[in-house]
């Protein structure tokens, strides 16, 4: 039996299964059907219909005081309990490759004494069970063998298209008794503080981000970019080299280890497009690159590009916008 830990979107009137969990469900059907699912810390009834469409015949619901605030070990206890309840040999436990999915499944793997494969994109072979997974921020793939009786893996985001099953099944909600120890609650969330907008103009939620890289040339090379940012009502994001050189503050960084952004328009200027940066901006809907190198990875991966020195292009664009607004 295949078990998928499902994350449900928070927020008013939402309550839907998260996009990445739907991707994980789609992926899980390639391993074995029917599927079991687990929802932790909230009622599963609201998502049972949708889970059925994705081929889930049974959803475990772990709720109660132990799950009121997030404690990863308690969640892991729930996953293990669900996995035991679902019975069967040759089991698989999956979650989306989100921070929470990765964290909980790492706990699960420890509790089961098995390996875990993170950010899996494909099953390569059933016997021995072999997967491909992202390493180096997606720049390379690793074929990895999982020899344990229970396979534990997370599914890399945006690599499997979420698709309902051909035929929907009826999904039963089954409450789950989970024995949560004091120790499982030792590390837990005690409060959530709402995010504050910073000087980067709330980079993560900005609709337009103007990006700057080494091509800015120095700490004094951002004036035109900041003007463009202001004209577009967007935020400034920078590559890692810019923060490393101390040209701009750290919280403006976009990349694998910085902010992961998903604006409507991203305008990277003088950014070559190292894999770490790409990992942070690839979710942008439209990318318009400005770069003097037409072969820069950022340019070849972009939707649109202007070839030229950013210090020539940006002032001209600013002037053009001002001119049109003045007219």
């Amino acid at each position, binding site marked *: 039996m295949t078990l998928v830990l499902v994350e449900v979107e928070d927020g008013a009137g939402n309550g839907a299964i998260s996009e990445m969990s739907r991707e994980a469900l789609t992926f899980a059907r390639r391993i074995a059907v029917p599927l079991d699912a687990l929802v932790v810390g909230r009622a599963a009834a609201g998502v049972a219909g949708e889970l059925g469409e994705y081929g889930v015949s049974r959803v475990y619901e772990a709720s109660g005081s132990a799950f009121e605030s997030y404690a990863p070990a308690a969640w892991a206890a729930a996953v293990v309990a669900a996995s035991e309840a679902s019975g069967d040999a040759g089991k698989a436990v999956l979650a989306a490759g989100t921070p929470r999915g990765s964290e909980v499944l790492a706990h699960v793997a420890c509790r089961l004494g098995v390996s875990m494969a993170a950010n899996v994109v494909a099953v390569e072979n059933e016997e021995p069970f072999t997967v491909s997974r992202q390493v180096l921020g997606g720049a390379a793939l690793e074929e990895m063998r999982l020899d344990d009786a229970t396979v534990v893996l997370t599914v890399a985001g945006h690599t499997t298209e979420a698709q309902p099953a051909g035929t929907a099944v009826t999904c039963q909600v089954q409450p789950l008794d989970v024995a949560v120890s004091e120790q499982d609650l030792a590390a837990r969330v005690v409060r959530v503080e709402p995010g504050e907008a910073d000087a980067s103009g709330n980079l993560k939620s900005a609709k337009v981000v103007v990006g700057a890289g080494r091509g800015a040339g120095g700490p004094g090379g951002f004036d035109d970019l900041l003007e463009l940012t202001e004209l577009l009502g967007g935020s400034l994001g920078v590559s890692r080299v810019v923060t490393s050189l*101390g040209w701009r503050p750290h919280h403006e960084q976009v990349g694998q280890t910085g902010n992961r952004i998903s604006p409507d328009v991203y305008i990277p200027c003088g950014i070559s497009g190292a894999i770490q940066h790409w990992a942070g901006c690839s979710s942008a809907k439209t990318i318009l690159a400005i*770069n003097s190198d037409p072969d820069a990875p950022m340019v070849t991966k972009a939707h649109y590009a202007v070839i030229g020195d950013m210090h020539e292009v940006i002032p001209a664009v600013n002037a053009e916008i001002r001119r049109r607004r003045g007219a």
Partner: protein
Amino acid sequence: MASVPTSARVVVIGAGIVGNSLVYHLARLGWRDIVQLDKGALPNPGGSTGHASNFIFPVDHSREMADLTLDSVQQYQEMGVFTESGGIEVARTEERMEELRRRMSSAKAWAIDSELLTPEQVQEKVPFLDPSVIVGGFYTSSVGVVDSLRAGTIMRERAMELGALTVVPTVEVVGLDVEEGRIRRVRTDGGDIEAETVVIACGVWSPQIAQMAGAQIPLTPAVHQMISVGPVPVLAEREGEISFPIVRDMDTFCYERQHGADMEVGSYAHRPILHDPEEIPSIEQAKLSPTEMPFTAEDFDQQLEEALELMPEILGDEKAEMRYAINGLLSLTPDGAPILGETPEVKGLWSAAAVWIKEGPGVGRAVAEWMTDGLPEIDLGHSDIARFYPHQRTREHIRARTSEAFNKTYGIVHPSEQWSSDRSSRLSPMYADEVARGAMFFETAGWERPHWYESNARLLEEYGDRVMPREHEWDSRWWSPIINAEHLAMRDRAGIVDLTAFAIFDVVGPGALDAVQRIVVAQADVSLGRVIYTPVLDERGGFRSDLTVMRLAHDRFRVVTGGAHGMVDLKWFADRMPSDGSAQVVDRTSAYSTIGLWGPRARDILGELTRDDISHTGFGFGTCRDIQVGSLQVLASRISYVGELGWELHLPMEHGAKLWSMLHEVGEGHGAVPVGIGVYATTGRLEKGYRAYGYELDSERTIVEAGMQRPKVKVADFVGREAYVKQREEEPRTVLCTLTVDDHTSASGTKRYMLGGEPIVSRDGGPLVDGHGHRPYVTTAGSAPSLGKHVLLAYLPPSEAEVGNQLAVSYMEELYPVTVGSADSTSLFDPDNERLKA
């Protein structure tokens, strides 16, 4: 994106400082239809120019490099990208301080304003430097920093404004097509370009590109480490990019250069880290740029400690962080000089590589001039790509020599210092015997040549103080009084010299006479068996070489020239052979060994070994012919570079050892001794006032200035004739003179002996300036043991070129009185050449 044109007058590959300078100067000189390619993006395509420290210290011991640097500075200034900062080379040791005094000599010789500073004076200029660590400094106010990327952009733009240039960045060269020995086509990933002239200005990538055409550019990419530390408050509070002089910490091989609020520390002290050109990462693979490789911190730790010692206040600040650190790649060559000129392998394919920021624009101009009419204003003899022998182009040799050269970047390099790596590449047939005689070998073009023989130490007693011993270690380094003893023994009796290192080539064919006649200044239409000594000029009447030519047959001439310069001479001749193939050049260097036998007893010695007539009437001066020496057939040539009776004996390489031992066997009875190159190239020739190419003679000198004009100019046309005739009609602007040192005693009482390169000044130390605007300096210095004098050659202003004129030479910042002994080619020793014609 500019597309790749299908044809071009010239393709310049590379858009670093060299390529950019070159396209500008080519355009300025009238070239059109120039295409410049680079695989990187502009303005910084990722080569060494992009991470250069961009500072310029103009003083260099080499005149060629000093001239190129000064010209570059002028060009940078004109473009408005030069910021004068001043620069100080500091000494931590007395030995280094002596070297700084020597740099003062070079500064004066090239007319660069410099001064020596006490530690306290250094601190006044650089307040954060600890004066207790140093013993002094050498300050040059004209040191500065440039924006080499901006300069490149300006030069490209100027070429484009002239309508001469198309620049195509981000296009990679994938092949060079050669047809019938000539470059025809550049193949790129953006299409092919037909071109008859192609320049490789690709820095560390040059060997790979040249290889595509089957040519070799012998350089290797090597690491130069640098870090940037900051922000430093003391620096941050001053406006601008640079407000303190750049400091070169010479003894630790490091420099400290301000960069706004940061201090950049660079080093040449670490182990040589060489890369193969094919190991350089692609632009896509590189983290920063292909030539900014990952920093290897442990190689730099020692330098950090020393830099901290010198500038504890700013570098010891815990808040000053090392934010940028790279192993930057730069190009090193086996002899440290750039690699410029048309490749010997492929016509129309030029190299402009291994060039630093400080000489980039000067090199661009000189190479452009060379490409235009063959006449760069600055002589590029030491940088000519043709200088390398095949073994000097091998990977092993390049790596061995560049490893050794790397730590010489800031080293104290004695003018006679010998390489220690990859020696014994070329051995004469008598090498084993020379080793047995205790030869001290110096290297020329890979040849091991005895400079003197320890076995001759016994002569020291014979000659006593006449060997002119030198007290000071620096003056006597790479020198021995035995040289002078050998000299005296040769003058008294006879000397036997191994000259196997000569480069020898024949010009053969029905058109040989016309071809030779057209190349050399002297009359080549001489009877068979004549030997001529002749200058070779360029079109402007400057020296390309001086050499001897033997007429061996109506259709065969044999050229004998120095080993060091032989490959360049060979190319010069080969390039000027008739296109109909009626004459050809054949290299015979490896076929022949040469032994010189000179001295008053030379005829007696040779006479014992041959039945041929070698009397003065039977074998006159300036003739050559085959004689039998014992069982050997020998081509004997009666000339001399040491002013004595005797012969150059040429014979097949395999016979060399036998002749050598025969001469010694018989010679011993006549008191003959083996004589090294110390005599042949210095003491012997100096006493005779003979000029040497590369010292007194180069393309910036004329026959008239060198005092070598003959009464008549030959009627037949030759390269440089028109210019030479004109030079004869004008007053010379400078005159080569022989001077003798009157008193060697320094202030400390030690007798000092100049080694060459020192400025000649008025008796009271005032500067002299010749008609070219140049300051006089010593081109060759050495003992004249027969005269008991130390002799200097120097070009003087014509008004000073008078026998008996009293001047001074500045050596290690002290003045020594000198007197002009000869103001033309008249020799101080045996002025009437009686010995030669004995």
